C-alpha cells in the first residue's frame, strides 16, 4: 500500500474475504460435499469424503484470502504518480505474531483432525486396516468375507477361501457385510484400488497386505491398479459388484460351478504365492 493512500481500507479486504469465505464454505458443505470423492459406498469411503470436505472448508478461506488480496492489489494498490515504498513489515511484532499463531493453529488443527480421521477409518467403528501389513489394526467381525486379491501383469484375480478356494476374474462382495481384502502379487508391485469403497492396498510379491471395508448398498465399484506396473498398467482395471446376501450366494455358487474344471489345479490357499522356480524366468 502506498504511504498515505487513504483509499485503501484493510477492513474492506477483511469483509470481502469473510463474505466470500462463508459463501464458499457453505457451497462446499451443502452443494459440493455430497458429491465429493470417493462417495459413500462404504464407511471408509464416507470418512474419506468427510475428510475431503473438512480440508476443503479449511483451505478455501486461505485460498480466497490470497485471491482477494491479489484482486485488491490489481485494482486498488496500483501505483499512480510518484513511487513510494510501503510500510515495513519487519519489526512489526504484532503482525508477525498473528502470522505465526494463525499458521500454527491451522497446521495443528489439521494434524489433530488428520490423526482422528486416520483412527476413525482404521478402527473397527469405521472398519479398515490401512493395508500396510498382514493384520488389521482392529479385528474384523467373525463373519467377515475374506477375499484374496492376486495381482499380476495385467489383471487382478480374486480367491474366496471360505467358498472352496474358488478363484475368479470378477470381484463381488456382499452389502452390509465386512469384506477383508488380502492383497498380494505374483510378479511386480501393484496397488489394488477399489476407489468407490475407499480402499487402496499395495500388492507386493511375498506380502499379504490386509484392509477391510463394509459396503453400504448393492451396486458397482471401480477397481484400478494404482501403481505403475508396466506398459499395460493403464488397462489394469475392472468393475466390482456389491450384491445382496441372496445375490452373492447365487453368484458364488455359479462361480464354483464354472470353475470346477480348474479347481483341482489351483494351489492350496496360502497368504502369498511364490511361483515355481521353473516358472519365474519364463
Amino acid at each position, binding site marked *: 500500500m502506498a504511504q498515505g493512500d487513504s483509499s485503501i481500507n484493510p477492513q474492506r479486504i477483511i469483509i470481502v474475504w469473510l463474505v466470500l469465505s462463508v459463501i464458499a464454505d457453505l457451497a462446499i458443505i451443502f452443494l459440493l460435499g455430497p458429491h465429493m470423492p470417493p462417495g459413500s459406498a462404504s464407511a471408509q469411503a464416507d470418512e474419506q469424503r468427510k475428510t475431503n470436505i473438512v480440508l476443503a472448508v479449511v483451505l478455501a478461506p486461505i485460498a480466497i484470502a490470497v485471491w482477494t488480496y491479489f484482486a485488491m492489489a490489481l485494482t486498488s494498490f496500483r501505483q499512480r504518480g510518484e513511487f513510494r515504498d510501503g510500510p515495513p513489515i519487519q519489526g512489526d511484532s504484532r503482525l508477525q505474531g498473528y502470522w505465526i499463531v494463525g499458521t500454527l493453529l491451522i497446521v495443528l488443527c489439521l494434524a489433530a483432525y488428520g490423526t482422528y480421521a486416520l483412527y476413525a477409518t482404521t478402527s473397527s467403528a469405521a472398519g479398515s486396516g490401512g493395508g500396510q501389513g498382514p493384520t488389521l489394526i482392529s479385528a474384523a467381525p467373525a463373519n467377515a468375507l475374506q477375499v484374496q486379491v*492376486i495381482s*499380476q*501383469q*495385467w*489383471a487382478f*484375480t480374486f480367491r474366496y477361501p471360505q467358498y472352496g478356494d474358488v*478363484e475368479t*476374474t*470378477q470381484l463381488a462382495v456382499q452389502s452390509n457385510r465386512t469384506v477383508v481384502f488380502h492383497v498380494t502379487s*505374483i*510378479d*511386480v508391485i501393484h496397488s489394488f484400488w477399489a476407489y468407490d469403497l475407499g480402499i487402496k492396498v499395495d500388492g507386493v*510379491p511375498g506380502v499379504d497386505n490386509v484392509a477391510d471395508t463394509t459396503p453400504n448398498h448393492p451396486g458397482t465399484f471401480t477397481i484400478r491398479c494404482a501403481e505403475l*506396473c*508396466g*506398459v*499395460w498398467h493403464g*488397462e489394469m482395471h*475392472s468393475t466390482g459388484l456389491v450384491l445382496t446376501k441372496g445375490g452373492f450366494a447365487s453368484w458364488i455358487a455359479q462361480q464354483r460351478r*464354472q*470353475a470346477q*474344471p*480348474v479347481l483341482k*489345479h*489351483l*494351489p492350496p490357499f496360502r497368504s502369498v504365492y*511364490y*511361483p*515355481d522356480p*521353473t*516358472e*519365474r*524366468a*519364463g
Partner: protein
Amino acid sequence: MIGGSLVFVVVVVWVVVTWVANLPPTVQAQTNGGTASVTFQTVASFGHAPHPDWVSYLVKNKQGDWVHSTIVQVPAHSLVKFTILNYDGASGLRNPLWAQPRGTVGGIETVNGIPRRVINPADASHTFAIPDLNVSVALPGVRPLAANQCSVTPCTMKQAHNTITFEVRTGKPGHYRWQCFVPCAAGFINGFGGPMQTVGWMDGYLNVV
C-alpha cells in the same frame, strides 16, 4: 544456445512420435457371412532382426501370408474362429487359473482337435487373453524332445506344433488389448519385459469394427 535447444526438443519429439506411431500393421480377419477367422502362430524365437531371440506371435493375412503383427481387425456382433498354431515349448502357468478357457463359445478350446475344458497348467507355454472381454485361452506347448522344432519364422505345418482352436462372439465395436499371461520373458520378480511389453510380439489389439 536457443537454436541448439530448439533442435534438441524437435529431435526428441520426433523420436517419441515416431516410436509411438510405429505400430505393426493391422491384419483383417477372413470373413465369411456372419463369421470371421483369425489364424496366429506362436513361436519361441522370431529368428530375424531386430530381436531374433524374442518370443512372438504372427498372424496370417487374407492372402495366406504370415505377418509379424498382433493387431487384428474383426467384425462386431459376429462369431470369430481363432486358430493358434503353437510352436513353443511349455513353461507353465504362473497362475493356474488361466488353464481353463474363459469367454469362448461353450467354455472350451480344442487342442489338436480334442475339446478341452481345462489343460494341465504345467503344459502351457502361452495364453491368448483379452481381459476386457473376459477371454482367456491357454496354449499347450510342444514336447521338449519333439522332432523338427521351429526356431525361425514363419514356421510351417510340417514342424512340431499344437493346433488350438476356439470361438469367441464379439459384441459392440471397440479397441481391445490382448496379452499373454505367461511370463515368457523376464519374470519374477522383475515382471514382464521385452516382447511381453511390446505390441507386435506378445500382446496387441483386437479391433472390433
